[in-house]
């Protein structure tokens, strides 16, 4: 059972990393404008 001492924190850390990534994505506006993001890639004159 000693392995649990490592495995549980590891699992929690992985879950926590997922949560962190999701929070970052949410905060940086990745889900704000799904329609616009889908179309923006077709815009070839974007000069910025």
């Amino acid at each position, binding site marked *: 059972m000693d392995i649990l001492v490592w495995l549980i924190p590891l699992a929690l850390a992985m*879950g926590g990393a997922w949560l962190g990534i999701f929070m970052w994505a949410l905060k940086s506006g990745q889900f704000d404008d799904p329609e616009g993001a889908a179309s923006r890639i077709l815009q070839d004159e974007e000069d910025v």
Partner: protein
Amino acid sequence: MNAPAQTAAVDYTRHVSADAGGVCRLRLIVEGMHCAGCAFKIEKALRADGVEARINVTEKRLSLAWQGVPADGGAILAKAEALGFRFLPVEKQQSEEAAQLRYLTRCIAVAGFTVGNLMAFSLALWFTSPESMGAPTRIMMHWYSALITLPTVIYAGGPFFRSAWQAASRGRTNMDVPISVALVLASAVSLHEAMAGAEHVYFDSVAMLLFLLLIGRYLDARMRLRARGAAADLLKMMQGTAHVAEDGGMRRMPAEDLAPGMRLHLAKGERLLADGTAEEETVMDASALTGETLPQIVAAGGALKAGMVNLGQPLHVRIEKTQNDSLIGDIITLMQKAEQGGARYVQIADRVARWYTPAVHALALFTFIGWMWTGAAWQTSLLTAITVLIITCPCALGLAVPVAQVMAGSWLFRRGMFLKSADALERLEKVDTVIFDKTGTLTTGQIVFENAQAVDENALRAASALAGASRHPLARALAAAVPVKAAEGAHEKEGRGMEMLLPDGRWQRLGSARFLGVSENAEDEKMELWFGEAGSAPVRLVFSDLLHKDAAETVARIKKTCRVVLLSGDRPEVVRAIAEKAGIDIWRGGVDPREKYEWIDMAAATGHRVLMMGDGLNDAAALSRADVSMSPSSALDIAQNAADIVYQKPGVGSVADALDLARRTQSVVRESFGLAIVYNVIAVPLAVLGFVTPLVAAVSMSLSSLLVVGNALRLRKGGR
């Protein structure tokens, strides 16, 4: 367009937020944008040195940032306005609602992470015993559970704690009070047990409860935000700008700054923003105010109301009242009054919470005192008391209403109806009077040419050719019904009709009875045009506003349970004819916006519950005053904003569907309450007497919640 040549920029200063570095930010709703292509066009037009523009295509919002002073905003936007788009500042309330939704998403993510990880611990703990697993391992798992659950409760429980605190600090209770108490106590006891190395640890129940409740809260918030959409409200529609005529030029001014005595230039197609008098004869579209389809002729010196649209030649208007004192200001005041009154309604869940919370807390306290009194140890007494709290945890009660609402809401959504207020279905169930507006609600709002058979074909073709050159609604209906090439050389006589001289010198006319020299018959409910040629008798062309196909059937369906009333601003003869066709017995014509409002006030005073159906500005006050209200999605933004439910399906069948569903939803909610009460009656005495361990309590509480959810799932199919 007849827009004045010199147009100054609009002043957005009030809505701009500037920071210390001189960067100004402005958020705007974009009107007239339909696709991503439009968005890129706007961005490109706006982008310049020191200006950043980014459009959110999904939400139709523009974020604008620039280096400079707030007053520059108007000039920057003018470039995009020149492309034909309109911009409205985002109201504070709307951005607050969007922020609340993002906050709930974060809470769900945190709670979801916790629930997922706790499941692993729970399974291991449930299927083993201290003997098979070893007590130290179990204690370690309990501590891990505590480690992730406690921060989650503190963070993700925020929406409930805040709402509970708000209610409690005002001396009220709502469902969030028992939910918060249960969350806090269950966490505290579990922590205490974990510290003591004991077995009664329920972090998993806490996290699961939190997760489920958050989902309900999120769906509720999203439904409301989506229903509101990009809709601007009445104030915003009236915000706009007006062209004030001054010596030697024209100045563009925000509508709120208009003052009596100013002289406005009103272009063709422009909306008047404050009450005034016309300086020249003109034709005005007053449909937003009266709901009446046909344009009105206003003589020079005649009174004009804010909200009317100029259909005639550009004219000058002398302002008589500020915008706040105008009829439109009146409607706003009525709506605000109605909204304050709306707070009187108490949701069923809160009504239950009002007696349930004190009862449960008192019961737990008595259990504790009782056990102490019989000489039990304080730990045992406290544990029993907490078991009582857990078992009575209003999970089932707390879930009954939101789950039923989410299910009913999604059923409505699939049928093109958006629920805008969470408790609309509750209020809808109690309705006993349904009031319809006529144009655009009970009728299609489209005028149709009726008597093609009765008219000679050559005359018809000539009339239609004349009609093709006019923008009058009746003429357009005629031109659409009889497609011929529009006549060249036809002249429009404002407010009377069309006239044309044929090459052989004869005249042709299409217009009002007076224009053709026929005596008028005011009693007739039909809309008419007359067509005549020199040397022959005028012919009458009849039009009508078509009733929705399902109107009569729907009215008959509603009449089984409710009184149906038709209130319209249109002429009484027209209203009577429509009422007869639809099978409505109670009707009134020539009703102005204030009278509609007062009619509902009277009905409410005599104990009736009113559902108002309307689509126009003239209905807005009535829509907010009614117990519950519905608007078609073709309605003006202002009406949609005031309404509790917005429906997309053409016709009026949605009303009857919504009424039926509301009744079924409430019966499901009552069943769920019944289930929860039966469960409590059985479980509570057992818990008080100490026959139930907290684990059994948590399991049975979850079971009762599952029952409630399962019951509500029936509503997904409309509750049949």
